[in-house]
């Protein structure tokens, strides 16, 4: 489903942040992406949620070369990808419930059709009593949970999360991970970027390690990702 072939990426005329990345993520898989700060994890996710285009190589998503997508197709693809951003990217003028409902609203789904779903989602992440609260009044952990609820509410095919448990307590981290596992059981592809080595080790899932913009296969050179 997700295929990176010799992908390179740089911001404007800066240095390459990703070089010769080859990665194959089958549909329905659950993987971690890890590596030190500045290794290119966030850039790789940005390529995946189509916020940027590769400057070299080819990325195939849902069987399509992403560089050939029209603007409308990009929007449609994004609706099939739920993203949890490290900085949450919640809209401060909307309530928590309106933020969670955003992917459904932009997809043209009627409020009546998703009202219960949004309520249930917020209750699940422990924010059932804060549906009408706006993000500036929420703590960091609460914002993160709203962002997670927003990423999964539309039941996307792929869920990308950048440090999704970074701002929550261990109990909530376990609940969030349990949600991702459940989504994966339903056939969703999950890709989590994380520094949390104990958690990564605990789940025993395939890991892609990024180092200096390339995939580290443990042998000192770049190779095909998704090593277990």
């Amino acid at each position, binding site marked *: 489903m997700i295929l990176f072939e010799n992908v390179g990426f740089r911001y404007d005329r800066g240095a390459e942040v990703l070089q010769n990345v080859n990665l194959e993520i089958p549909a329905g898989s659950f993987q971690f992406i890890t590596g030190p700060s500045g290794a290119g994890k966030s850039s790789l996710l940005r390529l995946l*949620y189509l*916020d940027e285009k590769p400057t070299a190589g080819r990325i195939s998503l849902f069987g399509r070369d992403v560089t050939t997508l029209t*603007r*409308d197709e990009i*929007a*449609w693809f*994004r*609706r099939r990808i739920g*993203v949890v951003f490290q900085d949450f*990217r*919640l*809209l401060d*003028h*909307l*309530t928590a*419930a*309106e933020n969670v*409902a*955003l*992917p*459904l*609203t*932009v*997809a*043209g*789904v*009627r*409020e009546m059709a*998703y*009202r219960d779903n*949004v*309520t249930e989602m917020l209750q699940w992440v422990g924010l059932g009593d804060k*549906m*009408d609260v706006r993000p500036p009044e929420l703590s960091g952990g609460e914002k993160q949970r709203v962002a997670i609820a*927003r990423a999964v509410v539309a039941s996307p095919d792929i869920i990308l999360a950048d440090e999704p448990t970074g701002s929550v307590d261990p109990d909530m981290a376990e609940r969030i991970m349990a949600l991702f596992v459940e989504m994966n059981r339903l056939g969703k592809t999950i890709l989590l970027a994380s520094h949390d080595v104990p958690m990564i080790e605990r789940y025993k899932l395939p890991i892609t390690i990024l180092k200096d913009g390339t995939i580290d296969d443990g042998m000192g050179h770049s190779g095909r990702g998704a090593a277990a």
Partner: protein
Amino acid sequence: MSALGRKGSLIPFTAASGFMMVLLIAAMAFLACFSLAGALGTTRIAGTWTEGLAGAATVRIPAGEEDRARRISLVLDVLRDTDGVADARPLSEKDVADLLTPWFGGTPELGELPAPSIVAVTLDAENEPDPSVVQARLDGASAGAVYDDHGRWRNRAAQAARAIGNLSYWALGLTVLAIMAGVFVVVAIAMSAHKSTIEALRLAGAEDRFIAGLYQKRFFWLGALGGLIGSGIALGAFVGLDTLASVRSALPMLEAPYYWPFVWVGIVVVCGLIAVLAARLAVLTTLRGRA
């Protein structure tokens, strides 16, 4: 739960920018109404002038040694024998004296003046004679008689009225463009202020037309409100002008007040649609420029 699906709330518009937009569109709508009234008025005046002068001509017979009555008789014979002339009638001395009164004051004694004799000609409106042919025939009958079908004045008046009418339409077009430019700039500035919101919408899968729709909805109502205020003031001004000096004959809307509401609603809707079009252009241009 709050109103989740309300599109209007997705972009945090501010009341201040909305107020300025309404003010701008109201001013432009006011000017547009005057341009439109100018265009309609001059077109109507041109029509009145040309219709008033059409179907009539005069023959001027200069005073001379020859017997005045005989010369008039010869001219009448020629005219009555000309195809396209419905009637020809010499003005009486009193009529000519009345015509000259404004220049001489009192009632002038024509016997003391070298005043020309005038023959008023009524033409067949659907078969007006060729002026050069009539003039040639008059030349043969009475030397110095001059045929004038007012064509020169009619054409000049019509040309002048048409030119003013065209200028008014240009002014109207420029006003519409100014509204569009104003909305375009305000939307572009607003989008810059809403950059993070728009980014979040795009990453959530919003298509360009969805984002454009949010701005279109907002600017339709701002445009319509501006149009309502501006055109309302303009209509009030027309009524005020009419009480000061009758402009009723030039402005058809004043003669038929029953269709004022339709004109008013039309202007309001058009202002809203112009704002929608400009907002859409601004959003799509800005989004594609950012991509």
